[in-house]
Structure formats: C-alpha cells, structure tokens
C-alpha cells in the first residue's frame, strides 16, 4: 500500500533512543514510489481518452497526490528526528563527532553536524560565552569524582592531576564537568 515504506522509517526511529543507522535503501524506495505516483498522475492528465473530470478518475489522482504528500511528510519527519538527535550530540559530547557515531550517519548528516557546530560557535563567539558548559546549577565548588578509565594527565586550575582508573579525586567542579558528561569520570554523591 502507498506510504508503507515511509511509515516503516518512522517506526524505526520511534523504537530506538540512540541514532539507528541511516536507512538509505528505504528512502530511495520511497523516492521511487513518489516518482511512480507522479508519473501516473501526469499520464492520466495527458491521456486524451480519459476524462479528467470523471469522479472515479479524479478520485484516483487525489489518492495518488495525497500519497505523495504523505510520503514526503513521513520522510521529513524521519530526517528531522535524526537531525535533532545529531544536534543533541553536539551539546552533550562536544564539537567533534565521536567514532562510534560516524558510521551510522549519512554524508548529509555529517555535513549538518559540521555546519551546526560552526553556527553555534559563531553565536557563542559573538557573545563571548561558552553555552555548553555549566549545564547544571552548581551545588558545590569541589566535587568527589571517581575515574572510570585511565585518562592520564589532566590540567586543572590548581595544577595537574594524574587520572587513573578506579581512583577517587576531589576536584573543582568547573574543570571536571565535561569529563563527567563524557563518561570518563563519575560523580560520587556523598550520603
């Protein structure tokens, strides 16, 4: 039935919370379906033996036209949902796209990430403020963190710290905020 493939895209994006691999095949099939519907409509209009005003003919054409619009809407919703998730990556993980995400994104989504990054940086530069830090209201000045991976030397405002796996450190919140977000450090909540 018309529009089934487009709806399958929506189902796919609804069921995953992360970004599923870009479904280029299905999109191509939807484009072909749209092209076929479009050609059908034009064929009907150009056919000298068909009376376009006949209700049955007109009905068919309206169904085809509406199917094209539905396909367009579904695919745009799919692309938009993915785009928003890519956008979220910039805010959570920083200006560089991590390796694990690169494969699942289309070429255009890579381009989108880069351009989004550029525009965000331009805005932040105009205001001279980094909006991706201080994402949560500060509770204390220094926080207790445990290191989850061997990270090595890390520069803080009070000197360098050597971050080793499973060691706990008492560090200034501002310095370690982005490491906590990336998962290198874990915030230890005191009871």
């Amino acid at each position, binding site marked *: 039935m018309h529009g089934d493939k487009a709806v399958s895209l929506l189902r796919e994006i609804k069921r995953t919370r992360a970004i599923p691999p870009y479904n280029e095949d299905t999109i191509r099939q939807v484009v072909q379906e*749209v092209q076929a519907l479009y050609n059908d409509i034009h064929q009907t209009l150009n056919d000298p033996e068909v009376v376009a005003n006949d209700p049955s003919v007109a009905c068919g054409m309206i169904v085809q036209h509406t199917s094209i*619009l539905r396909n367009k809407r579904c695919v745009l919703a799919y692309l938009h949902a993915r*785009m928003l998730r890519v*956008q979220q990556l910039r805010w959570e993980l920083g200006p560089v796209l991590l390796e694990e995400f690169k494969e699942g994104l289309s070429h255009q989504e890579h381009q989108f990430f880069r351009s989004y990054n550029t525009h965000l940086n331009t805005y932040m530069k105009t205001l001279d403020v980094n909006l991706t830090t201080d994402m949560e209201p500060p509770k204390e000045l220094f926080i207790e963190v445990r290191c989850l991976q061997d990270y090595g030397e890390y520069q803080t405002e009070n000197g360098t710290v050597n971050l080793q796996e499973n060691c706990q450190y008492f560090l200034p919140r501002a310095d370690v905020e982005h490491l906590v977000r990336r998962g290198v450090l874990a915030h230890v909540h005191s009871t």
Partner: protein
Amino acid sequence: MSDLGQFDLDNAGGPSTLGLDEEEEEDEFGEIRTLQQAWVDEKLCPEILTYESELVDNLREQIENQQRAITENSDASVENKDIANYFQMEVDRIRFLVKSYLRTRLLKIEKYALYALKTATVRERLSQPELEYAKSYVNLLESHFKESFLSALPQNFRNLDSKEGNLSMIPTPNFNTHVFFRVTEPVGDFEIAPGDSVSFSQGDIYIMRYERLQTLLAEKKIQLI
C-alpha cells in the same frame, strides 16, 4: 585582603557580614532577581519573550569583575581562601543563570526558527546575534532536507512551508498551553473567556491557558511560576 567587600556572601539574602547597607544590597541583587524571574518566565512560556539585553550585559560585567577580583586574591591566607570560595560559588551561580537563560532562548529559537523570522513581533524580541543564528539555522535546515531528500522529488513538492489542508509545515508555539502564574500588580477585572471575567488582585495565583496572558506578561503584571 583587598576589596571584595562590595559583594555579599549568599545570593539568597543570607547574612551580610561585610557591612553592606540595605540600598546597595537591593541594587546588587535587584538585577539578579530580575534576570532570575525573566529566566523562569522564559522556561515556562511557550513563546519567545523579549531579550533582556541590559540585564544580561550588566550581569556579565559583574561576573567578570568578581572573577577577576577572586583570581587576583588567590594567594591570600587560609581564612580568606574560605571566603574567596564563597565568592567563587556566587560567581558560578550567576554564571549558570545567565547561560541557562541564553540556552533556553536558543532552544526555543531552534524549535520555532522559521515562525520567529516570519512573524515581525517575535523577530523584534530577538537580539541581533539570536537573529543571525535563527537565519543560519533555517538555512541549515533547508539545505539539509533538500540534499537528503527533497531534491530527488518532483519540482512542485520541494518546498518546506506549504500548507496542506489546514496543516502548516511551520512549527508554531502552542498558545493553548496552561501556565501557572502569580499576579504582581493589581489588574482588576480580566476577561478570561468571552463574557466571563475574573478579578485579578495582587498576590493571586491562577492557572490558565497562555493565549490571553500575553499582554499581561509583557507588561510584567504577572509572573509565571
């Protein structure tokens, strides 16, 4: 210890141990409290409100000054270091406030970019950098959709702002969202529905659909809670 005495220890009106008199205290915190309310309003309101340019600029200047004062005194004695920590916390909190205000606005701008650019009243509420950002975001959106999908479609189906039977492609804020608000200035009789009015007195708290409250909020006669 040098003159850190112009700032108070606790943002929320705690003990003023540094001899700050009443008036000065109001001035310092007046701006913070106003921006705090603007921040809450912005977070709870479905549409984009007017940019508080003066407040943001002034507070950012204060942040810079206080931060500089703290770093310049970083080699102070142990007890002064304690006090310096409190000043640092205050700076951190104000910094968070300003950034969160800007972030909340930016998120709304991204969500309603095309609508904001097309509606003159909303466009006026954006700051110049926000306006530029909205324009580039819309362009980014358009080119992304075009390259990923739309360019493969027949010519008549390629646009992004069509209206197909009452459903517009441009996302607009939902003015029918309910909001809680407190009345800050006496308003008197207010029409909440055609033919139905309620008397809004100062201090009252109500919940209502946002649509009719636009003017009241803009005139600062109510604040969202």
